[in-house]
């Protein structure tokens, strides 16, 4: 019983997260402005990370934790760089 519950929940969650990623990707493509695309990427990152965590629950393995942690801790850096590029035209001054 609990297996079915969890299986359904995980599948549903993964599906929703994938949907969220798709929406973010659409925003990335449509823009209209660079800032929208960048937020789209950030959002894509976060949702992908969540997907990894759900994947961990789904498989019962903690081994995918590193990837999620790396996104959580370092994923923002490329977005920061992109934002700074928008603001200053230069990433590192």
């Amino acid at each position, binding site marked *: 019983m609990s297996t079915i519950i969890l299986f359904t929940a995980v*599948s549903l969650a*993964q*599906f929703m*997260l*994938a*949907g969220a*990623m*798709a929406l973010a*990707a*659409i925003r*990335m*493509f449509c*823009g209209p402005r*660079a800032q929208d*695309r*960048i937020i*789209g*990427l950030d959002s*894509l*990152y976060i949702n*992908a990370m969540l*997907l*990894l965590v759900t*994947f961990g629950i789904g498989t019962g393995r903690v*081994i*995918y934790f*590193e*990837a999620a*942690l*790396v*996104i959580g*801790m*370092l*994923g923002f*850096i*490329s977005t*920061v*760089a*992109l934002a*700074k*590029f*928008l*603001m*200053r*035209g*230069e*990433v*590192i*001054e």
Partner: protein
Amino acid sequence: MDQNVWLVVLLLLPFLGSFAAAFILNTTSRNLPVVISAAVAAVALGASISCYPAIAGGEILRYQFAWLPQFGLNFSLRMDGFAWIFTVLILSIGLLVILYARYYMSDEDPIPRFFSFLLAFMGAMLGIVLSGNIILLSVFWELTSIFSFLLISYWHGNANARDGARMALTITGIGGFCLLIGFLLLGNIVGSYDLDKVLASGDMIRAHPLYLPMLVFILLGALTKSAQFPFHFWLPNAMAAPTPVSAFLHSATMVKAGVFLLARFWPALSGTYEWFLLVGLAGMLTLLLGAYFAMFQQDLKGLLAYSTISHLGLITTLLSLGSPLATVAAIFHMLNHATFKASLFMAAGIIDHETGTRDMRKLSGLIRCLPITGTLAMVASASMAGVPLLNGFLSKEMFFAEAVETHENSIFDTMLPYVATLAGAFSVAYSIRFIHAVFFGPKATQLPKKEPHEPPHWMRFPIEFLVLVCLVVGIFPAYSIGPFLQTAVTSVLDKQTPDYSLAIWHGVNTPLIMSLIALVGGATIYALLKGYLASCDDGPPILRGLKGQRVFERVLVTVSWRWARFAEQRLGTRNLQPQLRWVVFTGLIAGLLPLYLSGFEVRPFVWKGADPAFAALWVIGIGLALGTAYLAKYHRLAALVMLGGVGLIVCTTFVWLSAPDLAVTQLLVEIVTTVLILLGLRWLPKRNPEIEEHLSLRARARRLRDLLLAITCGVGMSFVAFAVMTMPVPDAIANYFLDNAYSMGGGRNVVNVILVDFRGFDTLGEIAVLGVVALTVYALLRRFRPAADSMDLPEQQQIQNRFDAERSDRDLGDTVREYLLVPSVIMQWMFPFIITLAVYIFMRGHDLPGGGFSAGLTLSIAFLLQYLAGGTRWAEDRIRIQPLRWMGGGLLIASATGMGAWAFGYPFLTSHFQYLEVPFIGKVPAASALLFDLGVFLLVVGSTALILVALAHQSIRINRLRAIELSKSEAAQEEATAWK
């Protein structure tokens, strides 16, 4: 001493002498090189003469050592009578020429170089004559081309000398290549390159299907060298050489190499209709045309050159006939021609030397000033004309006698007597002209040098000697040249040696009548043409405009340059796009063609269901990839963002497919790459999406083609990928790794154990790649200069700085400070946490996902974040990374760990693993692989930091550059105002 060894001495001496002369660095030294050269020639001559008794006894001297025995190329020397007589000829005339040149060459000429080349040439010529291996022969053959090139171009300040030399080299060089092919074919036919074997296999050779091509190639070699029609035109142009060179090369030796070759291979190659046709046609045409052209030359040496061509034609014609008697005549004429032509060249040289010109229109009445030279020249040219009592007469009579004989039933054979007589008449005419125009008539008035007088005696001596030979041979042939000729002839013809008589008087016969006709006819021709010749332009009428040299040059330039350039542009490109197109295309072909040709079929496709989330992921991924491709042209940032998205999907895929290590690494690389490209983006030009360029039809077609190519590649990759993914490998080496990673590598993360242990050597190479790339990036950026339109501050900063400047309560840079005020605090506080993460990733690598590479990237991202947060100055004020030290340390630690195994007698990179008992903590796994991984970690940190920092520094550098330029322009402005 064994006489056979003399052969080596003979051959080596000139080369040694050449070397010695070349090393006389004092270019003004005159006598030393002459002494060396003369000594070399004299000693060699002595040696060869001392060999005569043996040779005359029918013995063949041989000397051989292996050179390239695998292919039958041996350094084998061989001297028979024919070779002997040529050796003596080369050496004796060489000796005379050396003596002559001593006086001929001017004080300004670098003498050592001249004699060095001359001796080397002499050596090469001896090589041709003495080679007992046909490949060795072709080696020396090409050497004569090379050294004659150097000798002709001796006065390379003169354009004519350069051009003449180059033409000679090109034609005889190409001829040499042809000869080599011919010899290779001959070797193929005979099965050996040994001259003896070749000469003994005449019947087999003539019957072989490859006979004709082989013959053509050999003849191309021989005829070009002997300046036979239609390759004759290089010889007159070679007259730009110093006269001693002409006397030696273009009368006695080099041009004789061709006919020498024809005579040498006569027993093996001649006697066929092809031989007669090819050799005879070339010979007869050359004989006639050469003589005809000679009459109309205005340059003394030009006349002699064409005369030489004609006489060589005569010899060639004789050799073509396939009759032993004709061959005797040919050999005899080779010797005779050498004597009278060498003396004539030298006489011409004296005239040139004394008067400053060789133009017969200017020369006149020189007999008054140069009585002895004149007399000698007269005798020599009489011999050239074939006047009785001189050696030229004898061989020409033999030629006429052979011409009358019937050899083959063809039109040429019928024509031959007439051609011979006509050529004889021409020869008489130009010989008379040579003498009459120069030595008789009124005293010349237009000479560049006034008061010509007789040269020093020793300069004239060679001519005197040769003229004496002409006379002695001409009058007492049987007692002077007779035995030597017999030896030579016997060694060529062997059993075919005919009976012949070397008498002056054979009674009144057809040849004699032909001779008389020629003499009278020649005199008449000269008398008729005299007036015309005195003033006409150089070259024969009608054909004057047709200069072989110009034609040759035009053809050469057209073929070798214009066509070549056209073809190079058509077949090649210097642009990147077509090159990449080719690469992709060939890659596609190479991958798919084998599959297509052999009818490969993918295993039947069974839908096993797919994870819907995974499918959704890739719908997103594909969309992002397409978006990236679509936006990359005008929306760089957007493309970069979307590329990041694709990368993320790839990472997720790795997680999905149970490869967390890949996911982590890919993620980290993704982050660093994004920042990296962003750093670069600042220096790229602005793009205006509004200006959608007008697309021509061609451009559209090109795009369509690229698109089709891209789609084909994609389909191909999909196809192959699917095929290979659905075909699991039963017995992969992976199983070994899976089975043994824990027990023998001490790690549960098999991928990491492979990286640092099983295949640690790959990793060592991989970090070397990263290191060298970082160095390259650094080196290149040190000299980086941005384009003019990127020199200015980015637009955003200009606006923000203006804002700061315009408000009184703000300082420059306030905007960016406020912008980063809050974020930078967080970014700074992330620093220690990321360091901890890096250590964590590093430590667990062996058992769990992670490892040196990921850890290194993580740490460098920590550094990068500080640069982002505070700027370069701020960051470097606080943390000074010394990337080179990290890199060097990393490489050293990694390789030292590998070498550590040597101490225990194990191969490089053998790892050691055990659990250590550590107090308080307990068992701790300790693998030497961890140390190796530390090296990886250090290198990755160093390299990544070096790349990022070097790029980041450009902004500062550019500020400095801008400041310098600004101060310069200000200073210039101040100066300008000060001057006002």
